[in-house]
């Protein structure tokens, strides 16, 4: 942290201190700068400064062919690679009129839910670390490692699986996957109970999270918050339920919600979502057709209708992840817009922060589960 030398005054004459949290600070989860104004230890104003991780993805996308872009989108939300691919593939497949075989849809759902679990596990560990608890971090990373092992067995990549193709997926599950995934799911399920024991019942943790960083449902919606951020405030908006894509309408799962919209509610929602995702994977493994194609037919020449547009969106671990494509009739997108859930969720910090203590601001930023890769793109 850099403390600026000048201390200035607010309109009513109170002296404030300008503090720059980040851009490089463990609690900012990447490269994020919060320009905070403090009176004593209380935040009176907070401006979020982003763009440090901008890699001009949207401009790049305009120069790449549709199929080549699918592996590249992994890099946006680097904690849940295949979910990015899912959003992109949904949009591009609609545009290019490619159909996906049922078996591939099941493989996609299984991989997506495993990645959701992995992403929530990382969030759990780093969030606890933000609040000063080191042990949960080590515990959750042990389980996350197992999820990444599964990624590796299926796709060869751990963090960036690059697994989805337009029209399906790259390869089938290997035989070793099935006994392994059962073991991993059992392990994660047991761990979630352990997490509740070590953290949820801890009075210090409760004091640090309950009633902190409250955002009402109406406000969360107006700020474009989605995912656990909106669900924590009590609106069970989940793209998998509201606008079912892939084969999500065949599974039985709950959308956990909070009541107050504080840090605690967002924490609870995510832990419950891990359990729900385990349920979805188990159902999908039962219903998964063992035979059939995994890649649909791709036209020899990609010719989308000119000036056509399409918006595909999925529920990523962070919220409503959208991909807007505009075509000009060639095999490259004319314009691609990535609707990143963290982008809007992070903006709401500016609204939540005033009135908080500095230490609570760390808890709030942690509870939002930002991935700067998708905020800055």
């Amino acid at each position: 942290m850099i403390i600026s030398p000048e201390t200035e005054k607010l309109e009513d004459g109170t002296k404030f201190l300008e503090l720059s949290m980040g851009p490089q600070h463990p609690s900012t989860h990447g490269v994020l700068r919060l320009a905070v104004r403090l009176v004593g230890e209380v935040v009176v104003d907070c401006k979020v400064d982003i763009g440090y991780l901008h890699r001009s993805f949207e401009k790049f996308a305009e120069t790449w062919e549709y199929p080549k872009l699918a592996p590249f989108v992994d890099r946006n939300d680097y904690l849940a690679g295949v979910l990015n691919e899912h959003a992109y593939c949904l949009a591009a497949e609609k545009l290019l009129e490619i159909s996906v075989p049922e078996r591939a849809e099941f493989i996609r759902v299984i991989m997506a839910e495993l990645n959701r679990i992995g992403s929530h596990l990382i969030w759990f560990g780093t969030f606890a670390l933000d609040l000063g608890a080191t042990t949960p971090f080590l515990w959750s990373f042990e389980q996350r490692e197992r999820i990444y092992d599964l990624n590796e067995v299926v796709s060869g990549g751990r963090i960036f699986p690059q697994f989805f193709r337009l029209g399906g997926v790259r390869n089938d599950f290997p035989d070793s996957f099935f006994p392994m995934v059962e073991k991993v799911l059992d392990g994660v399920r047991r761990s979630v109970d352990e997490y509740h024991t070590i953290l949820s019942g801890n009075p210090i943790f409760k004091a640090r999270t309950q009633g902190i960083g409250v955002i009402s449902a109406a406000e969360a919606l107006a700020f474009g918050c989605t995912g656990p951020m909106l669900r924590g405030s009590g609106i069970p908006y989940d793209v998998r339920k509201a606008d079912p894509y892939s084969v999500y309408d065949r599974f039985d799962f709950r959308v956990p919600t909070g009541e107050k919209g504080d840090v605690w509610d967002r924490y609870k929602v995510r832990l419950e979502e891990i359990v729900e995702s385990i349920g979805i994977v188990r159902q999908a493994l039962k219903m998964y057709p063992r035979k059939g194609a995994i890649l649909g037919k791709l036209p020899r020449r990609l010719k989308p209708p000119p000036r056509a547009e399409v918006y595909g969106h999925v529920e990523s671990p962070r919220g409503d992840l959208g991909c807007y494509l505009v075509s000009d009739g060639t095999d490259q997108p004319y314009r691609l817009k990535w609707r990143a859930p963290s982008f809007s969720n992070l903006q709401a910090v500016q609204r939540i922060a005033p009135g908080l203590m500095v230490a609570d601001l760390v808890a709030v930023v942690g509870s939002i589960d930002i991935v700067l890769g998708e905020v800055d793109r």
Partner: protein
Amino acid sequence: MSEESGGATADPQAPAAEERAETLDGWPIIETPLESWGTRCEELKEDGMSLLANLTAVHFLDDGKMQLVAHLFAVDEHGRYEAGETRDGTEHRGKIEIKTTFEDRPDVTVASVSHLWPAAEWYEREVYDMFGLRFDGNPDLRRILMEEGYDAHPLRKDFEDCKPNLGVSAEVLRKDAASNR
């Protein structure tokens, strides 16, 4: 999965049909002139479009047009999309795309919608940053992703690719490269 929908593309020869266009996945598209962008958005907000999911622009270099696009969802308190009808008779299933197309001129300003959906504040900043469009009424219209003082708008189609802009002029970089050879 593959849902058939008619009128997929906005055919430039048929402006009358453009009014009730649809996206490829069956969302109604509302076309509005630039002057009524703010009021149309306000009406849609009053008609229940509670979530501004996306706001962006597209630059059409060939016909010198700029297009502003917003994706709106009517999310109710049960987290579902609320189907309905807007006051001009557009039926929807909880999802609407609204857009406005106008001449790409440097003096154009668009009415900001950030007072309706605070989410728009950052989206408009991004559009300003990437396309150079100015929004009238945005409380904090600064660059958001590119650094302050950067002099181009990269997502415009007339942006020169790979123009070095790191506080170092192209000439210096060229000299530098030559001396390293």
